């Protein structure tokens, strides 16, 4: 008597022997509609132009942000690696806080513009120091001033973020007493 396993194996072998007819595909193909070829991309020119513009825009902002976010400190590292490390650290913090600030822009766009002007002033002072640095006889004093400037920038951004976050979720305006 054939057990269950043998029965299954026999049926499977039978199935392997049965092959589809070689004309089967031709029959199926003849029944398909004539225009069922690969779909064509048919974008209007404006959409293509918009896509290109979007790609260029993303590339521009990515490049711009990455350029400001990863400043090179090779010259400062050559003078003193510790100052270069501090600057890179502060720059990382500043970039992070600017991103946080930008993410809160929608809540107070006018205030954001004022805030941006305030930290741009500091950034300008930093750049002036940076431009004075090469070949200056008092480089250490300039570097200390640059570090102080970055600390001010970081503190300023922190304060601005705190203000915008408070505005986003304001405290209860009831009288406390």
């Amino acid at each position, binding site marked *: 008597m054939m057990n269950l396993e043998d029965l299954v194996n026999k049926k499977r072998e039978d199935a392997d022997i049965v092959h589809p007819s070689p004309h089967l595909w031709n029959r199926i193909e003849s029944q398909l509609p004539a225009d069922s070829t690969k779909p064509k991309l048919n974008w209007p020119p404006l959409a293509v132009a918009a896509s290109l513009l979007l790609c260029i825009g993303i590339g521009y902002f990515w490049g711009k942000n990455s350029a400001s976010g990863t400043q090179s400190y090779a010259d400062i590292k*050559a*003078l*003193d690696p510790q100052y270069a490390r501090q600057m890179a650290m502060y720059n990382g913090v500043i970039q992070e806080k600017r991103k946080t600030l930008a993410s809160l822009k929608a809540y107070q766009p006018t205030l954001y513009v004022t805030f941006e002007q*305030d930290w741009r002033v*500091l950034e300008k*002072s930093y750049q002036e120091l940076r431009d004075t640095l*090469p*070949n*200056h*006889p*008092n*480089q*250490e*004093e300039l570097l200390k*001033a640059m570090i*102080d*400037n970055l600390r*001010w920038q970081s*503190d*300023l951004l922190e*304060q*601005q973020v705190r*203000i915008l976050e*408070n*505005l986003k979720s*304001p*405290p*209860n*305006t*009831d*009288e*406390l*007493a």
Partner: protein
Amino acid sequence: MNWLNNLGLVIFLGFPAIVLAHDPLFSEKQKNITLHYELPKGHVVSVENQFGDIKVVYWNKEVAQVHARITASGVTDEKANALLQHVQIQHQKLDNQIQFKTRFTKTPTPPEKGFRSSLRVDYILQIPRDAELELINSFGDIYMPDHAGKLTIRQKYGKLYANHLSGSETDVQVSFGQVLIKSMQGGHMKAAYSQVVLDEVTRSELTNSFGDLHVKIARDVRGVVSYSSGLIDQIKEASAWQVNYAPKFRINQVDKRTKEIKIQSAYSPVEIPNGHYDFEVRLQNGQFSYQGAEQVILERQPKTQPNQPIRVYMGKVGSDLKGDTKIYIMSKHGQVKIQP
């Protein structure tokens, strides 16, 4: 073997000291320059310096004189001497001004690694007491004695120490530094990114943007504080303050004779003292608190109009119900608190 351990310790500790003691990589050279001009009445003495201090002293001659001491440090005598050549003291007499200016030229090659070079120029300026004066300095300090005449100071990356500045034409601007003034009786002081301590200010305009402002006694002061904390120990005459984005603004005491204090604040907590005065607090998206404050009588409060855009609290503080003082506060997005 104990002596061997001791010897090892002596070598371990002593070697760096020996190396440092014999480090030949430092030389300091100095050059002194003295310049003077006769100072006719009405002429302004102008000194512009960098990387060094300016000290002003008075004498009884109608002459303006500077002693400039240039100090150069380098790894060798040669290099220190070469650095001295990178400083010029320019000076000239114009129609109504006598000028002394420090000019640095950049070194042609990068300075030594490890900051083993420096260049410093310190001035002692001697002038008659009533001279009109303009001081511009960066990366150094200014030491200013009592002064009653016209005074202009522009200070960056350094400290300003001043005694009593009593002229009505005092114009001080400081950034990235510190300011310590004993008294100011007129004029303007504008500071940014600085710690400012003023012992006494009268009839003056003050601005501090980012940093700290501490005024011990204020009389008739118009102040603007942005991003900066503000601490006023005592107000003795009417004052007006504009406070923006400040982490804290606090008045500790108000003299009974003070007529009026006006504070306009935005995004800043404001604290006023517990004393004897009338108050009017107008809030736009803010809070008013007098928890723990004694003898506060509210004459008007907006309980019945909670949804008003501007809520007004009026009342009195203290037992002196006939006091002359009134404090007005207009606060936008901030807390106003009467101290306990």
